[in-house]
């Protein structure tokens, strides 16, 4: 595969390996086998970003532009499906595809780092890719004039000598940005255009100070402003900026290479997981983001992400965008929404099973924020208006779909509670199942929607086995009375106690719906089976007499079971109960023993 971008290897697999479900262990193993013969290939961890998993068939996510381009040029091999599969791209290269690929080239010098960038061979490859792209997308004139540019004489020289020649990345990167801008301007100019107006003016504010921001300011003096939230494009693909946080925009003055590297370094060294900035340099916008374990730069392609360019423009000038680009992006968005709708429908009230044996966990806030983002882009496509404010978005959705009102209110309350770190509201435990139902129908345009009750409940029996621990049991039952969600039944099995256990239990009869069973013969499994046998409700939550329960415990258990019908077991975290004067054993338990399972 000559030229083009930094995708090293494309694996096209079927939906069994959908990246939306699980890191595909079997693909990783297959990659390991390939690597045995080609040791120069990087480790899986390093490659994972460059691998593309395509999920065709039931989900049908559309192919990304870079792959569409390669497929059309015959530079990509397809390993599954019939030869004339209708999802396989054909026809001439479009402006969106070429510009997405050019944008990818601009991020390479930043992510590869100074060692690559000081090597002239690296720049030769980069410029040759750019020329290749210009030629295949019908910008031959620009390519010819670029070859004749002073400063780019090295393009025709031998590779070996270049490898040992030092480059000047500052100048070369500026030249790369300039050439890319010229080609992109030519790509768009030939087509009939529509005009994008900037969103209504709102004051940009000082962003919240983070260590990474401090470092950036200290090192470079770059100016950073936080803009009110805006969408990056017509598709729901890039979602780095949750609506409530706004968008911090870093403006790099002077040398683009040095400024962007400083931004990258600052986030890499001090960034919090999930911290993202938009950086403006040389007429382009870059998303610089720090995620758990890596930092990345994504160039925003000026055609596909024109809404971001208009919104972040300090001059607030309207922007002409080819109508064909808008149409293509909207079609891509519809394809993505169709696939998401299928995914949400499949997972409403059902958890897909992972290979033996796994447990699931969900980050509720991520699920909620993604849902808000997708609803927002859906409305943007339907009405041409960006509901950046979450309350406005909810208000509009409630007006369009009155049947979803209780759900929207519950979702809003819970998202705010999670973001603010306060206790979850008492009701709305079924919000996740309904969220999947709403998204499945909203993204597919179904109206009116058929939804479950977001405040649905389950009956819960709390099962406690006790034997001769009267004082511990007092604390345990005491914490049970403080639960946000009250138990429907507390079933205590007295496994042959000889102390004042029964007196302790009697003391709680007026405060808890207590039932007591006696089992003279000691044995924990049989005592637990007795609980299972005598419990009157559909969920049995076990705990021990030497535990103290957090107030949200039972509420969390209920939420867990409400997520899906095929969840048979819900566990949580076991933390350490601190004592006033911890002994060495206490320290051991707190450090190694608790919180491991």
């Amino acid at each position, binding site marked *: 595969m000559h030229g083009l971008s930094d995708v090293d290897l494309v694996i096209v697999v079927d939906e069994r390996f959908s990246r939306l479900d699980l890191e595909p262990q079997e693909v990783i193993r297959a990659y390991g086998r390939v690597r045995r013969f080609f040791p120069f290939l990087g480790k899986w961890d390093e490659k994972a970003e460059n691998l593309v998993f395509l999920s065709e068939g039931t989900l049908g996510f559309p192919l990304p532009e870079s792959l569409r381009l390669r497929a059309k040029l015959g530079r990509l091999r397809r390993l599954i499906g019939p030869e004339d599969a209708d999802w396989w791209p054909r026809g001439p290269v479009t402006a969106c595809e070429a510009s997405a690929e050019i944008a990818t080239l601009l991020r390479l010098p930043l992510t590869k780092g100074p060692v690559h960038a000081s090597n002239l061979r690296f720049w030769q490859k980069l410029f040759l890719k750019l020329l290749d792209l210009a030629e295949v997308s019908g910008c031959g004139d620009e390519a010819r004039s670029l070859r004749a540019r002073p400063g780019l004489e090295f393009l025709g020289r031998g590779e070996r000598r270049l490898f040992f020649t030092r480059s000047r990345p500052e100048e070369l990167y500026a030249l790369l940005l300039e050439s890319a801008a010229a080609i992109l301007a030519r790509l768009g100019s030939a087509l009939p255009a529509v005009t994008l107006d900037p969103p209504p003016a709102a004051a940009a504010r000082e962003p919240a100070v983070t260590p990474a921001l401090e470092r950036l300011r200290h090192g470079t003096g770059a100016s950073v402003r936080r803009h009110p939230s805006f969408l990056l494009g017509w598709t729901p693909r890039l979602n780095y900026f949750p609506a409530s946080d706004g968008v911090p925009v870093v403006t790099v003055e002077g040398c683009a290479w040095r400024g962007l590297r400083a931004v990258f370094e600052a986030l890499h060294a001090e960034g919090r997981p999930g911290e993202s900035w938009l950086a403006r340099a040389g007429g382009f916008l870059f998303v610089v983001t720090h995620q758990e374990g890596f930092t990345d730069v994504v160039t925003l392609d000026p055609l596909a992400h024109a809404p971001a360019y208009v919104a972040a423009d300090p001059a607030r000038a309207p922007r002409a965008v080819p109508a064909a680009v808008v149409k293509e992006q909207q079609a891509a968005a519809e394809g993505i929404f169709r696939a998401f709708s299928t995914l949400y429908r499949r997972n409403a009230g059902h958890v897909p099973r992972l290979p033996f044996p796994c447990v*699931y966990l969900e980050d509720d806030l991520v699920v909620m924020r993604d849902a808000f983002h997708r609803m927002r882009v859906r409305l943007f496509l339907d009405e041409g208006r960006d509901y950046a404010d979450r309350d406005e978005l909810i208000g509009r959705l409630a007006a369009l779909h009155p049947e979803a009102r209780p759900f929207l209110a519950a979702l809003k309350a819970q998202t705010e509670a999670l973001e603010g770190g306060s206790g979850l509201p008492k009701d709305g435990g079924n919000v996740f199942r309904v969220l999947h139902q709403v998204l499945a129908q909203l993204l597919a345009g179904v109206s009116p929607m058929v939804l479950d009750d977001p405040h649905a409940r389950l009956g819960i029996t709390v099962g406690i086995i006790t034997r001769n621990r009267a004082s511990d049991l007092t604390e345990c039952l005491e914490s049970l009375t403080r639960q946000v969600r009250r138990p429907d039944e507390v079933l205590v099995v007295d496994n042959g106690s000889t102390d004042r256990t029964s007196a302790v239990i009697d003391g709680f009869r007026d405060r808890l719906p207590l039932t007591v069973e006696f089992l003279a013969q000691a044995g924990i*499994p049989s005592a637990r089976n007795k609980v299972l046998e005598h419990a009157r409700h559909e*969920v049995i939550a076990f705990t021990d007499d030497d535990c103290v329960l957090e107030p949200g415990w039972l509420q969390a258990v209920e939420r867990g079971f409400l997520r899906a019908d095929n969840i048979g077991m819900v566990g949580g975290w076991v933390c350490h109960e601190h004592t006033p004067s*911890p002994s060495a054993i206490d320290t051991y338990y707190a450090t190694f023993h608790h919180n491991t399972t």
Partner: protein
Amino acid sequence: MIVELPSTTSDYRGGRVRRYRMGFFHFSNNNLALRAACARDLGGYDLAATRSEDVELCLRLARNPDWVALREHGAVVRHKARRTFRGFVKQLWGWGTHLGYAYRKTGLKGFHLYRVRTDDHQIGFAYEAPGFPFLACVFITDFHLFHLWLLLLALAAATGLWPAAGAAAAVATWYLWRSLADERRAGFRPGETAALAFHHWVANVTFVTSGVLSGLRHGLILLPASIFRPSTPSEAAERALRLARGAPRGDLEAGK
């Protein structure tokens, strides 16, 4: 026989791929909730699995195609430590002593060898031979390697091979230093670190010994991994804990 436990948040219904941590997965009895239908389907607790009935039930559920186990971050229980050294050793012995039964009951066969790295608690090297006539499940950690080199040191010293003994002593020291990575990272004072390392060592020796013995008793080769300090709980767990407590609290990671 690897049991996989997602370590970080993974919105499996939203669209992000996260890495998975390897280790033993089971929910502990003191914080485990069952759906009545699922419990009926699985047949309840196994009366023969005294002390490891939770491990056994979790492994049974994991092998069942109809049900899924879910970890809910907000479900937090605070558990009291054993008060005496005797109780502490007894609990660790109990953890290992019925492991063999739970493993045998899965009906799995094959030879499974895993090297577990000390720094991140991930599987570094894995060898699996499913054709083995019975179940052999061996986890190698720095704790095990330290003792292996200690054994070689003793053998070399007993046979009078002093240069070999010196080399073995050097390697054993290296593995000891590495196996103490978690204690060093915990940030205690030297005296506390020594006490912590001692208790950790006692816990490991007790648990591994009783695990090996229970494996032999049930006709399988079982060498459990040593007990690790949990890796940093995910952000979501911390957030859930804050929610559950209603106040910010940063002691989850440091554990003190």
